[in-house]
């Protein structure tokens, strides 16, 4: 049984009022709210264990290092990675994508190589590959979506023919589409391509298993799964990470530094973790993973399907409202981006805000997708484990009111 009322009690932010009304937070795809367990773990670290990691030999430093490395093991298990050293901490998913672009892409992509991504990607899984292609004179190919907002395997297979690198997201932050990562990875691998998955939107909602999907790289951000800002993850298969040179140079990524001959890089994962990391954020990431595991990822996914089904149904009752993305609730996350006739998304979100409802309006860092769908911008309501069906009803009421004001 998924007890959303019990879960909500863990989130202090819901005690606050917005514009004198209860906060209805429907912007979790931008960033999730944090449970008290995560907040306490961060303050607890700074109160009791604060020291820099992987440097000092004193007790506090050793304790900090142990706590930090324990999170690496948690992440490894959480995404079923074969080895702890394949987990690299970054500040966010974008930095993780750029790490791969710089350290793998710039080394191995050559003129004329083919790089493939899809039209529904977040800019952070689009711009790095586009820029890589421009820099190297490589071919940049974009896979289209179907009318129902999904990746067609046939189209995908055609486009990845002869590709060297293929990037796609396991779930879209606008369409909500959940892709068949395993199948798409297999198609990419059949062409001998390296397969990169953007898990920023899927990892918080759907069980992730890199062994099963067999991807070569996976990235995600901590803040979308209730961890603090400043915690991101790159997973990479050892064979790829070993071939790559450091992305940032400095302390900790180094084994030996000499004035008169070249430096020697550190082992994985330290080779890619130069400079003092956001230790507190990583500690919080560990607490967030514990929190998710306690509820269970399968339960989270099925609750999200329940919410998405209720949401799609409720929105379909509003005249002049067009939901972007798949019509089948099980093929999507519990979020809906939509456009409304005669009301600009900015105005929709401002009017919802007056009712205490937080949604996002704009292009959600997916300009190519909005161009493809021929909408300038959209409004997105995204739900997570602490949201209730009643909040869908309030959203609908508020949208009807906005329509009336603009009628």
């Amino acid at each position: 049984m998924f007890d959303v009322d019990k879960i909500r009690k863990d989130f202090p932010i819901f005690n606050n009022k917005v514009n004198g009304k209860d906060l209805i937070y429907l912007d979790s795809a931008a960033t999730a709210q944090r449970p008290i367990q995560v907040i306490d773990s961060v303050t607890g670290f700074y109160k009791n264990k604060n020291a820099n990691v992987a440097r000092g030999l004193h007790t506090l430093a050793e304790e900090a290092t142990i706590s930090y490395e324990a999170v690496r093991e948690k992440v490894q298990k959480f995404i079923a990675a074969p080895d702890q050293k394949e987990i690299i901490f970054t500040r966010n998913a974008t930095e993780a994508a750029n790490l791969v672009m710089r350290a793998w892409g710039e080394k191995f992509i050559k003129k004329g190589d083919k790089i493939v991504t899809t039209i529904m990607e977040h800019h952070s899984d689009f711009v790095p590959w586009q820029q890589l292609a421009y820099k190297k004179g490589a071919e940049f190919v974009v896979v289209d979506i179907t009318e129902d907002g999904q990746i067609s395997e046939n189209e995908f297979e055609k486009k990845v023919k002869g590709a060297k690198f293929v990037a796609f997201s396991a779930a879209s932050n606008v369409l909500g589409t959940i892709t068949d990562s395993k199948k798409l990875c297999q198609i990419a691998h059949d062409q001998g391509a390296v397969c990169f998955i953007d898990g920023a939107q899927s990892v918080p909602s759907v069980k992730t298993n890199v062994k099963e999907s067999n991807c070569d790289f996976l990235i995600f951000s901590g803040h979308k799964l209730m961890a603090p800002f400043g915690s991101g993850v790159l997973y990479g298969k050892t064979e790829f990470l070993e071939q790559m040179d450091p992305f940032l140079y400095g302390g900790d990524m180094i084994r030996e530094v000499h004035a008169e001959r070249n430096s020697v890089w550190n082992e994985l994962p330290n080779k890619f973790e130069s400079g003092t990391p956001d230790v507190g954020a990583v500690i919080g990431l560990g607490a967030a993973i514990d929190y998710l595991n306690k509820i269970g990822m399968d339960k989270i996914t099925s609750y999200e399907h329940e919410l998405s089904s209720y949401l799609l149904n409720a929105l379909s009752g509003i005249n002049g409202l067009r939901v972007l993305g798949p019509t089948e609730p099980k093929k999507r996350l519990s979020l809906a981006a939509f456009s409304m006739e005669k009301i600009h998304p900015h105005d929709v979100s401002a009017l919802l805000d007056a009712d205490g409802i937080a949604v996002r309006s704009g292009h959600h860092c997916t300009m190519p997708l909005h161009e493809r769908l021929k909408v300038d911008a959209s409004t997105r309501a995204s739900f997570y484990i602490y949201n209730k069906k009643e909040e869908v009803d309030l959203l609908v009421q508020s949208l009807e009111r906005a329509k009336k004001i603009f009628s």
Partner: protein
Amino acid sequence: MEEIYQQFIIDLYKNPLNFGKMEEPTYRAELGNATCGDSIELFIKIDSNGKVSESKFIGKGCAISQASASLFTGYLKGKSVEQLNIITKDDCLALLKINLDKNPSRMRCALLVFDTFKKAVDQKS
């Protein structure tokens, strides 16, 4: 926030003033707001007396940016070139008669027409 949506703003959004293209403008510029996809193209014609004889815009965006563009293009009419050079952001915001101090993102919407105007007069078409 709701006080922003006064009837005259909604009316201007639905039926904008001075909306349309202009042949052979003296000044012209186009500017977009990358975060929301809004854009405005502004046209100004200066007559032989050195005054704005006509001022128009086309574009798309939220109620605030469209209402602001309607009001601001009207405000420009009859101004001399010297007067154009001393118009400020506050002059533009005053036309809307709403306080956006606590809404920095909506402030950008309201000022899109002003920024387009500055671009236009700085680079004579």
